[in-house]
């Protein structure tokens, strides 16, 4: 847009006219010591814990340690320009970030500033980053699903709206891929998503943004990025900032999904900040409150009842519940889930999706270990049809795991055992799924139905993936009414089972794969 000189002067005039001349009283202090992004400030007698404080040059910090003679603060941003003796001002505000619908489709830093070059974000609402989670009275139990579009998860470790489901695994096991697939599947579900990237390479974050854009899921997603080059303080507050943005949707009677990728790096950043603030180190040099660090964050992911939504919106939204579902990610070292941070987060969350390197390398992707992965509350939220059909798959895999060791003596085994091994092998194949290809409820139901009813038993194990693909294409064109019905109602009864059986029998008679 080109501006003429007269328009420019008009704009300047407006700005000057609207500028309010005011004297401001503030509480000031001086920087005594500054190193590694942590400043010791003398003065600031009125500062609050967690308050934003202003350094010269428009750089902000957060007061964390309030001691008798000094205040320990972390600097949010570049701290090269700050020197000893600089004046620091209290702002009187607890650290807060902008919230609202305008953030959707944007990439912001941990303070909510846009970093995607798409111009300023027009929001009127903001929210403190640290907030107390909804209480007992405000809550409602989880009974609606978040469909991730991944067979293995929706059938075996279902996630409900308001649940906290941990994704845990070593590096390179597809943790981010699972989370991104879950976000992509929310494109038309009405669930708003927040993806918080902590301590990742900027290139990885750019790749995620591009993938979401490609699959049309960026428009209902907020990306909060604290890259590896951002200060430890930014990496430490990024999850809280993202959570505040997600809570906005929850408190307005909508559903939201937040991914923290990953909380291990946040714990590292917090450890760094804590040690620099001279807080005493504990196990693995983490400070004493590293459990609370994650528990207070994950408690904020919750489902709240309609009364609470009405109260929070001042009666603007009635009769709608709100939810914030969290998918925290934890990276383990060499599969060690008994390290400090993984055990903490496992105990906080409502279940975990356990990803394994061996499975990943043997081509089972997503590399979900069906035995160790659990969902403690998701079962109540599953759609009827997936719940009915998914149970069989879980059982088949459990039996297969027990017998897999004997698989090489297959010829010496009795008929039933051999049957179970063969079935397990096919179900394992069936649970494989390509990245960025989430399945609809109907497609998933047909896949699970085929496994349960033995339609796969005479299909070569290596051909299962092809079989499934052909089956989905076939039912889409030849049983479109049934597919639409399942997608709409997700109901399951004898009539639907009969129709599905007919469709699959026809496919096996006529289809090719």
């Amino acid at each position, binding site marked *: 847009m080109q501006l003429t000189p007269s328009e420019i002067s008009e704009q*300047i005039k407006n*700005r*000057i006219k609207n*500028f309010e*001349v005011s*004297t*401001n*009283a*503030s*509480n*000031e*202090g001086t920087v*005594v*010591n500054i190193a590694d992004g942590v400043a*010791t400030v*003398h*003065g*600031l*007698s*009125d500062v609050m814990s967690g308050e934003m404080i202003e350094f010269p040059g*428009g750089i902000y910090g957060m007061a964390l340690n309030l*001691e*008798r*003679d*000094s205040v320990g603060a972390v600097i949010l941003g570049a701290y090269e320009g700050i020197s000893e003796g600089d004046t620091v*001002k209290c702002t009187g505000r607890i650290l807060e970030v902008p919230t609202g619908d305008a953030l959707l489709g944007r990439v912001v830093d941990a303070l909510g500033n846009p970093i995607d070059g798409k111009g300023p974000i027009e929001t009127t609402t903001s929210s403190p980053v640290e907030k107390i989670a909804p209480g007992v009275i405000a809550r409602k139990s989880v009974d609606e699903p978040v469909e991730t579009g991944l067979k293995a998860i929706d059938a075996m470790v279902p996630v409900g709206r308001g649940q906290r489901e941990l994704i845990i695994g070593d590096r390179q096991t597809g943790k981010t891929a699972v989370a991104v697939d879950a976000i992509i599947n929310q494109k038309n579900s009405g669930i708003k998503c927040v993806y918080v990237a902590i301590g990742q390479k900027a290139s990885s974050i750019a790749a995620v943004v591009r993938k979401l854009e490609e699959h049309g899921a960026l428009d209902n997603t907020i990306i909060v990025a604290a890259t590896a080059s951002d200060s430890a303080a930014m990496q430490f507050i990024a999850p809280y900032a993202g959570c505040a943005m997600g809570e906005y949707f929850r408190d307005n009677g909508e559903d939201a999904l937040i991914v923290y990728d990953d909380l291990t790096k946040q714990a590292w950043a917090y450890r760094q900040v804590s040690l620099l603030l001279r807080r005493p180190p504990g196990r693995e040099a983490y400070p004493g409150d590293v459990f609370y660090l994650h528990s207070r964050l994950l408690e904020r992911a919750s489902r709240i009842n309609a009364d609470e939504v009405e109260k929070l919106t001042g009666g603007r939204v009635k009769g709608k519940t709100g939810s914030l579902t969290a998918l925290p990610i934890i990276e383990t070292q060499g599969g060690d889930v008994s390290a400090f941070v993984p055990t903490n987060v496992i105990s906080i969350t409502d279940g975990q999706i356990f990803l394994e390197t061996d499975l990943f390398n043997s081509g089972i992707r997503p590399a979900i270990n069906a035995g160790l992965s659990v969902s403690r509350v998701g079962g109540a939220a599953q759609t009827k049809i997936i719940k009915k059909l998914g149970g069989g798959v879980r059982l088949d895999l459990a039996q297969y795991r027990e017998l897999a060791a004997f698989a090489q003596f297959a010829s010496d085994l009795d008929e039933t055992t051999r049957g179970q091994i063969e079935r397990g092998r096919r179900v394992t194949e069936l649970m494989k799924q390509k990245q960025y290809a989430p399945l609809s409820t109907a497609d998933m139901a047909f896949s699970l139905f085929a496994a349960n009813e033995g339609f796969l038993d005479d299909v070569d194990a290596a051909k299962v993936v092809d079989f499934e693909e052909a089956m989905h294409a076939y039912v889409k064109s030849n049983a479109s009414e049934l597919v639409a019905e399942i997608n709409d109602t997700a109901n399951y009864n004898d009539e639907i089972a009969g129709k599905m059986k007919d469709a699959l029998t026809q496919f096996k008679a006529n289809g090719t794969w």
Partner: protein
Amino acid sequence: MAEKTTIARPYAKAIFDLAQGEGKLGEWSEALQLLSAIAADADFSVLAGNTSIASEKLAELMASVAGEKLVAGGESLVKLLVENKRLNVLPEIAEMFETLRAEAEKTIEAEVVSAFEVDAAAQDKIKTALKNRLGREVTLTCKIDESLMGGAIVRAGDLVIDGSAAAQLKSLASAMSR
């Protein structure tokens, strides 16, 4: 700095309690100012750093320099500080003593930095306004800084009230560039 204040705090508190009990806050305040000035003196700090000088001699020397102005009990304080090798925290002790005294007497020192000279009437106005706000007796010191262009900055403890033209221009600049 934080460590020094930590060391100075018990000394200052003890001196203050003693002085308040005896009703000699003013005398002690003067004595502490004097002693910290002596301790900060370059020649004296050379002597203080010299290990071959016995601590009694050093204490004697300090007391004799202070001479008549040293309040009763001041000599003991000097001895104690020399013995504990804490002469270097004397300025902090003096400063903290003043803070404690100001708090007890409900007074506060305020500094007014302005672009032009502030006349007596205006000073009185500032004084009463500050008194209303802080609930303390205010002693004003005035300074002139032409770079402010207009208005004034009032500092009282950690509280800073910035009504200078320079600050307003600065915030206008940041409002324009937003």
